[in-house]
């Protein structure tokens, strides 16, 4: 058994989880997959930064500029250690997962792919790991192969192998589905991709926040994730890439910081990681992302993961009791803390709205995964997702709320 922690105690660290909605019902936040709540320590870090050390980074000599630069770079080091990156120079700050993937598609993609080259995507990708590749494909003429989702909500790895036989240049895949919760066998997929000479780009928006991720152990090439889904603020995310790959890539956006020298008609590119950070970065937010990493490390990512496993097992058990309710995706053991479901005769929007009356926050819609919904012939699902601050009690409230929904629409 695991060293369990008390989610209700954790909950106290999160100011937003103390609030009431609709005047007097306590919030039950089950929408972490969209964005997580933020612990007090992270907010204090943000506020401390802006109230004390706020300055632009990298070019300043005065005290505030030095403090800001030191904070910004030490957060980078922390984040690198968090995912076991070999070097902090491989940690590129971006706005979010989406920008990180666009960076890879535009910089690595345009430099390394040619008309007629193939890339592999999957049917369960978030739009963030589809659209940038579609845009690139349309622009330079790539062929896209899709790994379908099987009836258990898992990737069909036999089809993957067939796609690999066509020698694609890149495999772009999510570590964990934000709808089905499916945890993909990235390590194996990476080995296979490399055997066929393909680079593997991993959307880790839903894994890095929820489980220990070691990019070296996974053996992947690029990993993208967002601070706002892992207890940090909005406005900052990370692209990690293998040094040799990043080093060989042309810059993405142009401007201050990413240059070594600028002439009127030409410029010299800066070193990693600055090459990919154009203009004033999200300094305060990056520093607060470092504080989020500290917070999560304090709890322990193994513990976070075990806790979510417990909660999602319990949630699936309880959800599947409800007549007319269907949960999509694999059994609890193969998924993270996400449950997308439908209820016969009730549109997911109505589910979400009626649950909201009781303070229960779930998402309804396509969750930025329209092709996946299409695969299930759905236009929308309701989605309850769990994090370290969710308790069994939260699940019970969800179940009670869903019975109420049934009653309203009965």
């Amino acid at each position, binding site marked *: 058994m695991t060293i369990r922690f008390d989610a209700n105690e954790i909950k106290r660290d999160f100011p937003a989880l103390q609030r009431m909605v609709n005047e007097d019902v306590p919030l039950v936040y089950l929408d972490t997959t969209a964005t997580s709540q933020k612990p007090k320590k992270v907010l204090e870090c943000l506020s401390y930064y802006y109230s004390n050390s706020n300055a632009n980074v990298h070019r300043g000599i005065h005290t505030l500029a030095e403090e800001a630069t030191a904070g910004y770079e030490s957060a980078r080091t922390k984040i690198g250690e968090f995912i076991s990156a070999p070097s902090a120079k491989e940690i590129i700050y971006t706005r979010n997962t989406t920008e990180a993937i666009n960076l890879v598609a535009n910089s690595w993609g345009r430099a390394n792919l040619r008309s007629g080259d193939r890339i592999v995507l999957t049917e369960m990708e978030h739009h963030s790991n589809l659209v940038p590749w579609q845009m690139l494909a349309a622009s330079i003429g790539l062929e896209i192969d899709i790994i379908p989702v099987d009836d258990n909500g898992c990737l069909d790895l036999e089809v993957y192998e067939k796609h690999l036989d066509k020698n694609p240049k890149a495999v772009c895949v999510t570590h964990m589905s934000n709808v089905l919760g499916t945890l993909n066998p990235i390590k194996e997929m990476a080995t296979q991709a490399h055997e066929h000479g393909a680079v593997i780009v991993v959307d880790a928006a839903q894994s890095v926040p929820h489980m220990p991720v070691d990019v070296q152990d996974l053996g992947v090439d690029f990993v993208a994730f967002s601070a706002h889904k892992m207890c940090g603020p909005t406005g900052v995310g990370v692209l990690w890439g293998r040094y040799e790959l990043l080093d060989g890539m042309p810059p993405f956006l142009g401007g201050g910081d990413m240059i070594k020298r600028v002439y009127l008609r030409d410029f010299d590119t800066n070193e990693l990681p600055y090459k990919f950070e154009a203009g004033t970065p999200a300094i305060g937010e990056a520093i607060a992302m470092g504080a989020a990493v500290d917070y999560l490390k304090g709890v322990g990512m193994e513990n976070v993961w075990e806790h979510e496993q417990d909660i999602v097992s319990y949630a699936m058990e309880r959800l599947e009791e409800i007549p007319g309710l269907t949960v999509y995706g694999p059994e609890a053991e193969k998924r993270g803390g996400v449950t997308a479901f439908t209820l016969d005769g009730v*549109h*997911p*929007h*109505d589910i979400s709205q*009626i649950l909201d009356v009781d303070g229960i926050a779930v998402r*309804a*819609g396509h969750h930025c995964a329209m092709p996946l919904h299409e695969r299930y012939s*759905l236009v*929308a699902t309701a989605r309850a997702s769990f994090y370290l601050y969710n308790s069994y009690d939260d699940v019970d409230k969800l179940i009670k709320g869903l019975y109420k929904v049934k009653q*309203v629409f009965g």
Partner: protein
Amino acid sequence: MEDMYREVILDHYKNPRFNGELDPADITYQDDNPLCGDMIRIDLRIDDNNRVIECAFSGQGCAISQASASMLMEDIQGKSLEEIKDYTREDILDMLGIELGPVRLKCAMLSLKVLKVGAYGVQEWIED
């Protein structure tokens, strides 16, 4: 939202009025809200004075989108296209009798959008 969805909304959702299609129709238009998959189609038959003599809606989606379409059909009976021009967001919200956030507002307004764009073209529909 105190009384969850008001009885009247649920009634229109469960027992939609003027549900179906007209063939032939003078005006047929449909649109959807890709965010949530709500879809509404409206068919109208118009007399020589530009009055609605028959109407029907079909589609799928949440209670708000379907109930508001049903209520709207009931309301435009015998109205002229000129009068339909004057329908506002407020009219729909009055029919529904509840307050709605920005996402649900789009659900509620879908049928009015389909009606107006169908009757006058996109110019007439100013959404915001």
